[in-house]
């Protein structure tokens, strides 16, 4: 049942929030041990919240657009009184004294938070294998990764544990796991959703967004969490456009460009089955009345290189505060400096250390211009190229991930191969543009393929319209 239907049923009194919750808790109990989507399941707290929703319905009140809908939240969003770990040992035991803005908005909309989901430590990774608390597995094939870094949130939706979840996307961390798990995942325009309370990875790239099984549900959740927040200076002040009301408007007359560089022979490693599904998706959009053609956005191929300088640089600074002084882990040592070092050395995993060092290097005296400065200029190049492309097209199209879900352990030995899985998703983060992954059939291995719809800043309405068309035209997905 979709989140929209569940909320309607609860608001109308046709179903109790408690019964909806229990059904989902049962699903979690059945499969969570093999999937490990959650760092913590909040069954007791969720029951209290569900009962409160039911009480309000009984009292004739409207608990909100997500009344009684179970949701999962990536464990890098702060929850007052509930541990927030970022799947890192360094935050083990930390209990935030405040709620992230998105968490407040979920509660205000009547949603019932059932747990905090697993992620690559501090959202650094593309497989959720970099979690200090163990990997999450792909519900469609537990020998495969769910993607990452929001693998827990993607898996929770794919496994039917929750109809909706929130992830965060810095270089593809919502869209790539959505593609690999066969669900819808949206990275909104930078600034559309407040980052207040999202533990920062790379501040100029991070954005929170929804996972859902349907495009309509993704729109519903996005509409709940988006909108201006005075606690985030990078929050867009304008009122966000309505999405629900435009979902069925189709793509008649739209101009859509397939990004040549990310879809064909320019980049190595875009799998044949993925390219085939992309072609079928383009045909479906054309059949629905859009003009679709291949177009060049040349600088997108440089996104990966720029990203792996900019994101680590910001991260190296954002992650300095984990020093054992105010919260979280401390490993004692005779001086404060030694204590910081001991704490950070024990508390951070290898991927986090790698990126902190990479970013520190890129900002350090003598290297700033060669790495950070240059990458910022490449960012300008990408922004400019997109601007040119959006002068001709309403939307752009590409694969979300170069391949379907890969095996657990397949890419952990070589960081660079892991990084390459984000090649198609990174450009939107650098430009601050929205993009989303929509499931579109399966690959040769029977695992889901995602198609990425890209839009210019604030272009969510057109993006969702195209996503709805693709969803309707999609071949059967993977059987779970």
């Amino acid at each position, binding site marked *: 049942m979709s989140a929209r239907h569940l909320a309607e049923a609860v608001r109308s009194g046709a179903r109790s929030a408690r019964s909806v919750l229990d059904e989902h808790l049962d699903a979690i109990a059945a499969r969570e041990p093999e999937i490990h989507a959650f760092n913590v399941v909040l069954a007791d707290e969720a029951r209290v919240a569900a009962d409160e929703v039911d009480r309000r319905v009984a009292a004739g009140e409207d608990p909100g657009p997500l009344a009684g809908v179970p949701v999962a939240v990536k464990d890098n969003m702060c929850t007052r009184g509930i541990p927030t770990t970022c799947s890192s040992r360094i935050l083990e035991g930390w209990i935030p*004294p405040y709620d992230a803005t998105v968490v407040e908005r979920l509660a205000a909309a009547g949603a019932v938070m059932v747990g905090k989901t697993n992620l690559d430590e501090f959202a650094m990774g593309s497989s959720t294998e970099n979690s200090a608390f163990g990997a999450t597995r792909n519900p469609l094939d537990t020998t495969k990764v769910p993607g990452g870094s929001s693998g827990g949130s993607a898996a929770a939706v794919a496994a039917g544990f929750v109809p909706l979840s929130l992830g965060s996307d810095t270089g593809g961390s919502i869209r790539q796991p959505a593609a690999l798990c066969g669900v819808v995942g949206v990275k909104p325009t930078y600034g559309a959703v407040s980052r207040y309370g999202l533990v920062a990875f790379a501040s*100029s790239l991070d954005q929170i967004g929804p996972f859902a099984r349907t495009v309509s549900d993704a729109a519903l959740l996005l509409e709940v969490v988006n909108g201006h927040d005075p606690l985030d200076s990078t929050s867009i002040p304008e009122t966000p456009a309505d999405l629900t009301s435009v979902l069925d408007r189709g793509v008649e007359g739209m101009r859509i460009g397939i990004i040549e560089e990310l879809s064909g022979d320019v980049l190595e490693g875009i799998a044949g089955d993925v390219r085939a599904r992309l072609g079928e998706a383009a045909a479906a959009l054309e059949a629905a009345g859009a003009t679709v053609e291949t177009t060049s956005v040349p600088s997108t191929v440089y996104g990966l290189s720029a990203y792996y300088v900019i994101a680590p640089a910001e991260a190296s600074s954002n992650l300095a505060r984990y020093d054992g002084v*105010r919260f979280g882990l401390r490993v004692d040592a005779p*001086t404060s*400096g030694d204590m910081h070092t*001991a704490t950070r050395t024990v508390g951070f995993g290898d991927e986090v250390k790698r990126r*902190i*060092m990479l970013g520190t290097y890129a900002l350090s005296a003598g290297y700033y211009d060669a790495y950070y400065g240059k990458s910022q200029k490449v960012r300008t190049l990408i922004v400019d190229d997109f601007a040119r492309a959006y002068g001709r097209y309403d939307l752009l199209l590409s694969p979300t991930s170069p391949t379907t879900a890969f095996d657990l352990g397949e890419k952990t030995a070589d960081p*660079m191969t892991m990084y390459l899985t984000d090649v198609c998703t990174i450009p939107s983060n650098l430009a*601050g543009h929205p993009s989303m992954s929509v499931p579109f059939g399966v690959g040769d291995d029977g695992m889901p393929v995602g198609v990425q719809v890209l839009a210019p800043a604030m272009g969510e309405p057109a993006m969702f319209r195209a996503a709805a068309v693709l969803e309707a035209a999609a071949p059967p997905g993977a059987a779970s």
Partner: protein
Amino acid sequence: MTERITRQDVAHVADLAQLSLTDDELDAFTIQLADILDHAADLDALDLADLQPTAHPLPLVNVFRADVVGPTSDRDEVLAAAPAVEDAQFKVPPVLGEGP
């Protein structure tokens, strides 16, 4: 190809980032970081001379808040999260040297 990053560079960077690495880790990280920086060398082919850097995707300016007191934290709650506390302050091992 010239060495993108040396073992010494990595040791220096680890020191700046307050991380301590074993010899084996130092070897492995040097190879991995060099690999990543090698990949980033594709940017060397670009002519970027006329481009301004983009620090941020949003075009906003002058985002201010009013100078009005908001809620303060509950001190006990905050201190309860700290690894060590004394006299309502955060207790740390002695600090060597002086801040900038």
